[in-house]
């Protein structure tokens, strides 16, 4: 029996793309890592998986394929940053010299997080529900069931929270923040 036949490829690919977008977003605001976009990272991981004679040694007993490939994705991102370090500075200083290379301004980790938060609040200003959603997000404990936790804070059902997030993502500026759309624009 082929142990890979029950993989949900659709979910796996979507998950890797979303995780990669998050890594690229956190690594550098508005740019790709080492000129690699989130899409490139996912392609690299899937190529590694397909060209490995044993599928990177995965079996169900070792955990989910999603966990394995997300781990590999993170390692590849680190490799790219290391390579970048040789060109532009220390990995620990990835938001110093490296971030300045080809960038209009440096984005320190703290600054980047504050930027995202400030930009989100700016984008939803005037929409009380979305402002409340962001405020509640700041109170999250970091548990697994985010919609449940947000629902309890906002007195809404998880489904209503999900709908609010959908509304948030319909805002163009938010989409760009989440998706690192600047990368796509630069590459096309």
């Amino acid at each position, binding site marked *: 029996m082929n142990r890979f036949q029950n993989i949900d*490829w659709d979910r796996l690919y979507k998950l890797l793309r979303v995780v990669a977008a998050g890594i690229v977003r956190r690594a550098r605001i508005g740019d790709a890592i080492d000129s690699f976009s989130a899409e490139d990272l996912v392609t690299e991981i899937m190529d590694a998986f*397909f060209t490995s004679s044993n*599928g990177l040694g995965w079996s169900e007993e070792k955990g989910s394929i999603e966990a394995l490939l997300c781990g590999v994705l993170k390692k590849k991102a680190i490799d790219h*940053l*290391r390579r970048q370090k040789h060109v532009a500075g220390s990995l620990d200083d990835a*938001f110093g010299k490296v971030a300045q290379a080809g960038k209009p301004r440096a984005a320190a980790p703290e600054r980047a997080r504050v930027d995202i938060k400030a930009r*989100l609040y700016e984008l939803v200003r005037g929409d009380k529900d979305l402002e409340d959603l962001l405020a509640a997000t700041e109170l999250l404990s970091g548990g697994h069931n985010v919609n449940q936790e947000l629902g309890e804070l906002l007195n809404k059902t998880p489904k209503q929270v999900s709908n609010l997030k959908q509304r948030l993502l319909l805002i163009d500026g938010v989409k760009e923040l989440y998706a690192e759309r600047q990368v796509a624009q630069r590459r096309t």
Partner: protein
Amino acid sequence: MPNDRLPNDEPDMLDKLFGDPASLSDEDLDLLYDVVAPGEDPLAAIHQMAENAAVAYRKRNQVPPDQVQAALDATRHINSLDQASPSKLRQIVDKLKAPVRGPVSDPAFSYRNRAGELNDSDQAVIDELTEELKEDWEEESGE
């Protein structure tokens, strides 16, 4: 010692808002995927990468490994169910059998998939629909 952490690895506000992607429901994952890769067909992307890998193996006179074959089988464009593999058919059946989330137009369907006990009112609706269905079948078989 090599640094094995990504700089700025702490979750930002968007990460906190959506949580761990691995724990996302299919619905929320679809939502985020549409934002990061609008219009991109995930199965087509997987198929293309698996196809490229398969071609490389064949050029070396090697049989593609199981994961490549599984990806190709699962993402092959299917025009009719005759061509579908048993695993694909199982996936289709599983999806059809899965409970419907959200409002449904057919009350009997939602009752059939509900977890709790049926009350008298639920049972009456199902009995009524069953009778209706029987009558329809009898009419059809009588024609």
